[in-house]
């Protein structure tokens, strides 16, 4: 990072002590499509809107929810291409961890490594911060976990969180609906209802994506027909 003539960082402090580039990156995230995550007692669900720019786009080719390891998945809000880079790096880091320690990477470790990468891009020469916030859902020996990672590289563990366009409404909705004893199926229904709140147009299995991980510790992206089933139950 930072070769050729740009050995100085493009992210510099403003007189008020803020890193303006990171603020702008958060704005980019805030104008991205809504995504949210909910940690249930026996699993985690992450979901996102999948609004395509035109009806001509083949929606099967677009997958926003990605798998990082068999027991960790991720969804983003913001710039898709930036998230691709992070997903690729995270997968490699998880694999390197496994090669070194012969155990699957704990969720916190993977989140920390991803956050470190994102921070590096705020302090290196010739690069800009990532324009995505990630929601990482995983299930390891510590149980189900949900983390949000921001463009600055800071990360927080959440019981339920939302990001993107409709973040304030979604978070208020989640605050009202969230209970600690929630089971995974209830969490999926709540996630769907939260997405429905700010959804423009008709919600269906083709324009939202849901990823779940349960006590079987296998992250799975639900197929459109499975999403439709949950949608009908939620009504």
């Amino acid at each position, binding site marked *: 990072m930072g070769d050729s003539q740009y050995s100085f960082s493009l992210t510099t402090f403003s007189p008020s002590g803020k890193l303006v580039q990171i603020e702008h990156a958060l704005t980019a995230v805030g104008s991205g499509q809504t995504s949210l995550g909910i940690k249930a007692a026996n699993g985690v669900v992450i979901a996102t809107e999948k609004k395509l720019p035109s009806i001509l786009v083949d929606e099967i080719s677009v997958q926003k929810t990605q*798998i*990082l390891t068999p027991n960790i998945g991720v969804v983003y809000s913001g710039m898709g291409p930036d998230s691709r880079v992070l997903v*690729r790096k995270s*997968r*490699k880091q998880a*694999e*390197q961890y*496994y*090669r070194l320690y012969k155990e699957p990477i704990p969720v916190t470790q993977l989140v920390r490594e991803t956050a470190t990468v994102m921070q590096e891009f705020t302090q290196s020469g010739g690069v800009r911060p990532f324009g995505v916030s990630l929601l990482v859902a995983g299930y390891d020996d510590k149980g189900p976990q949900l983390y949000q990672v921001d463009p600055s590289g800071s990360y927080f563990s959440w019981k339920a969180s939302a990001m993107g366009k409709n973040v304030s409404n979604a978070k208020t909705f989640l605050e009202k609906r969230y209970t600690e004893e929630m089971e995974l199926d209830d969490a999926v229904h709540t996630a769907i209802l939260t997405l429905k709140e700010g959804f423009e147009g008709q919600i269906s299995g083709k324009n939202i994506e849901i990823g779940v991980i349960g006590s079987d510790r296998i992250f799975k992206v639900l197929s459109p027909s499975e999403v439709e089933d949950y949608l009908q139950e939620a009504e």
Partner: protein
Amino acid sequence: MSRFEESAPARGGFSFDLCKRNEMLVQKGLKPSSYLKTGTTIVGLVFQDGVILGADTRATEGPIVADKNCEKIHYMAPNIYCCGAGTAADTEAVTDMVSSQLKLHRFHTGRESRVVTALTLLKSHLFSYQGHVSAALVLGGVDVTGPHLHTIYPHGSTDTLPFATMGSGSLAAMAIFESKYREGLTRDEGVKLVAEAICSGIFNDLGSGSNVDVCVITKGKREYLRNYMLPNPRTYVSEKGYSFSKKTEVLLTKITPLRELVEVIEGGDAMEE
């Protein structure tokens, strides 16, 4: 820029400096240490539904048996396994590394790994190390294009065969294959033939021994039959047990616990990180 003149090892990877030194010493008349024969029999064959791999379980350090029951059939992918002969560290490291690369590739493509992918990753790695990574492999698996069996030599050349053997016991095993192999074997016939070939290596080659491991790979399923046959059990166990001569005195028998029994208090304060 001066930093481009730094030596390669700063970034990790093999350093060939000592190889140049060794060549220089040989030119000056130093006899290099003789090559240790790779003690192994590994085989593979293609049967009607897939691929069967077999291996013995003896690891040798020169004339000494280092491991009587080691695992020579390595996991590469859910549908691909690899037997390794040669330096055990080299075969383990190379198969581990390519297995990692295949896993990442599966995440990126969302598809099952193909045997030719594993083959190409292995052979390009071995070729780039010019034979210094002493790993001779029998790679087999079943993917969307069908069952495949390949042999890979330490210098990076490969063969695609319906039946293959490698290692010091390869001639003994190949004798069995050449006389009894035919196309379209059933699973049981194939496993029996593989076990026979490995046994031939075990009994006729000093570098191979102990037990037979078999791995059957078919479309969508694999069976790793660890210690499928144990033709060399330890039969000699002295029934008399050990008796000490009368002059031996047992002075004192005392068991000292090294640590007091620790009580776990539920709900205590968590340790601060």
